[in-house]
């Protein structure tokens, strides 16, 4: 009991570095303002207010991130810069600000996708009144009155806030709270589609149930790791592991259970089962947002926890990640071949990408200074996440504009002959698919090249051989869609491409431009990733 008394006596006011965490504060502040807008602004003005608020918030946070990035101080003589803020809870270092920037840029074009009103005839793609049952008079009334849920914008802002906090978290409980902040709004967003509401609600149910289940594992892993190390802080955990104090069983069980929670979020096999169902059922704008940004945030958190916290125990966890990486690539590439729905196919492709990123992650290749010509594993994965994020949002944005009378036509057979009716859009989509397949002169190629070389340098060459072979398999199903679009005759009246407003057009253009530029001229972003350095502890 004496220890509790002394601890109570030592309490002092916590020191919060507000300027360092300003991007987080801006996004959460805007989210809270969004809730107030819902309460106090007249219904017809809410949409405009929310969109402007969302865009201003994300751009403001982006500017704040750049300011923070410009002022990061080098830490000693290591390849890291930045500092641990908020009493050890948040690490603001090179990789953190790089991930913040990535997430915010991707969120910015996702906000535009959320705000698209042209495709549904002057209304957003979200349910007019989520509480109205599908097929009832209440629902018809909601749609004739032109109701729309503008709550999606604050929900999205909260989710973005969680995504910013997740890869920056420097202790386990902050990481858990961030995980839930990013997940809970996403569960709700998944269930808010205007069309095909049964599918959408089912996606929300499945995502929620499995997400809650996996966070249960994550939390128990936190408890066991805390029991082992006596602290939640990553630095202290690393010290405890280096000292090899306490029972190894606790540590191994803790690492395993925490890995379940994080691998679930990145959609790695065998914890991938939710991905295709949720990606298919959720509104496509939400799918784009969640496929890109959640994966960036979750991989950032995975990297930090396993490199900083569990880095000293790498011989214990690398075999597990090897198995998971191979399994993930196999599941993603092989099951994507059998898919008949474009959103499901992209979901399996995102699983395959998670496997490729894990290949880079497990390489554990370190560099000691900023001047090195080689990328470390962290930097390669950061770069891959950027390329993946833009391709994914772009591809899903294209899916939102290919429609028929009942909404989006996601069945692959209905995409036959799209290249003949609208060659420009089909060409852009084909380019995204080639990018995902990793064809040279697209960003997918440079991304894959970065992670595979860093994995080889780290000695994980058997994994890279598997990854390259499976990339070839993956190329098959991407090319099959391209052949379908350009070289087969349209079935029936075929899909029509609805002209979107400027917002979706901007999203597709940004995604396309990023895929081209990062493929042809990747230098600046590679330099940025290399400048991110290492995690600090």
């Amino acid at each position, binding site marked *: 009991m004496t220890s509790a008394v002394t601890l109570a006596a030592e309490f002092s006011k916590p020191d919060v570095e507000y300027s360092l965490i300003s991007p987080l504060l801006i996004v959460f502040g805007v989210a809270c303002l969004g809730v107030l807008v819902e309460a106090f602004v007249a219904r017809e003005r809410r949409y405009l207010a929310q969109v402007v608020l969302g865009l201003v918030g994300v751009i403001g946070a982006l500017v704040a991130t750049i300011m923070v990035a410009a002022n990061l101080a080098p830490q000693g003589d290591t390849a890291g810069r930045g500092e641990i803020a908020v009493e050890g809870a948040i690490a603001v270092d090179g990789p953190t600000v790089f991930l913040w920037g990535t997430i915010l840029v991707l969120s910015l074009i996702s906000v535009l996708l959320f705000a698209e009103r042209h495709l549904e005839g002057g209304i957003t793609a979200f349910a007019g009144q989520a509480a109205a049952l599908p097929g009832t008079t209440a629902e018809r009334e909601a749609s004739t009155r032109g109701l729309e849920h503008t709550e999606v914008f604050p929900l999205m802002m909260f989710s973005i806030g969680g995504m910013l906090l997740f890869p920056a978290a420097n202790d386990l409980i902050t990481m858990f709270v961030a995980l839930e902040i990013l997940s*809970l709004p996403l569960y*709700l967003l998944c269930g808010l589609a205007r069309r095909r509401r049964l599918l959408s609600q089912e996606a929300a149910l499945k995502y929620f149930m499995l997400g*809650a289940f996996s966070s249960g594992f994550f939390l128990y892993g936190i*408890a*066991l790791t805390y029991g082992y190390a006596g602290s939640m802080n990553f630095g202290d955990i690393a010290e405890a592991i280096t000292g090899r104090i306490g029972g190894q069983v606790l540590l191994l069980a803790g690492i395993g259970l925490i890995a379940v929670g994080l691998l679930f979020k990145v959609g790695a096999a065998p914890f991938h089962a939710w991905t295709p169902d949720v990606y298919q059922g959720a509104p496509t704008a939400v799918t784009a947002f969640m496929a890109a940004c959640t994966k960036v945030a979750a991989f950032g958190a995975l990297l930090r926890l396993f490199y900083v916290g569990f880095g000293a125990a790498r011989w214990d966890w690398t075999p597990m990640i090897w198995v998971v990486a191979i399994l993930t690539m196999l599941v993603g590439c092989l099951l994507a071949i059998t*898919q008949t729905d474009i959103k499901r196919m992209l979901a399996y492709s995102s699983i395959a990408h998670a496997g490729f990123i894990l290949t880079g992650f497990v390489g554990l290749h370190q560099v000691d200074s900023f001047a090195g010509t080689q990328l470390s594993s962290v930097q390669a994965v950061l770069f891959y996440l950027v390329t993946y994020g833009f391709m994914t949002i772009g591809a899903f944005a294209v899916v939102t504009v290919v429609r028929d009378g009942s909404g989006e036509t996601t069945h692959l057979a209905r995409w036959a002959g799209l290249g003949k009716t609208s060659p420009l859009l089909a060409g852009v989509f084909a380019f995204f698919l080639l990018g995902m397949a990793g064809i040279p002169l697209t960003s997918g190629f440079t991304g894959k090249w970065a992670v595979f070389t860093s994995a080889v340098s780290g000695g994980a060459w058997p994994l890279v051989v598997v990854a390259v072979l499976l990339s070839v398999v993956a190329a098959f199903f991407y090319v099959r869609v391209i052949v379908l679009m350009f070289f087969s005759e349209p079935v029936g009246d075929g899909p029509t491409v609805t002209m979107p407003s400027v917002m979706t057009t901007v999203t597709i253009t940004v995604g396309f431009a990023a895929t081209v530029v990062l493929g042809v001229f990747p230098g600046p972003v590679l330099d940025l990733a290399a400048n991110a350095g290492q995690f600090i502890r």
Partner: protein
Amino acid sequence: MSGSPFLVLSAILFTIGCVGVLTRRNAIVVFMCVELMLNASNLALVTFARVNGNLDGQVAAFFVMVVAAAEVVVGLAIIMTIFRTRRSASVDDASLLKY
């Protein structure tokens, strides 16, 4: 102080919750089993706080309670909508999305 009886209890609760999620069919019961898993973790956290002689685990337990409360709000809302649509809370009935 040895915390092992409490840790054994927390492991048993966690296992009951985990098996419950996998075998029960009613969404509400599945959700209760998830909550049981979270509470098992809380018990482990508090026990380890006592064993380690610091307060981190106890503070974490409070955070977990708040998160669990938020999760209930979101989870019950989702289960309610699907129950009102389908007149059933069985997780087996929600099977439109497959293959």
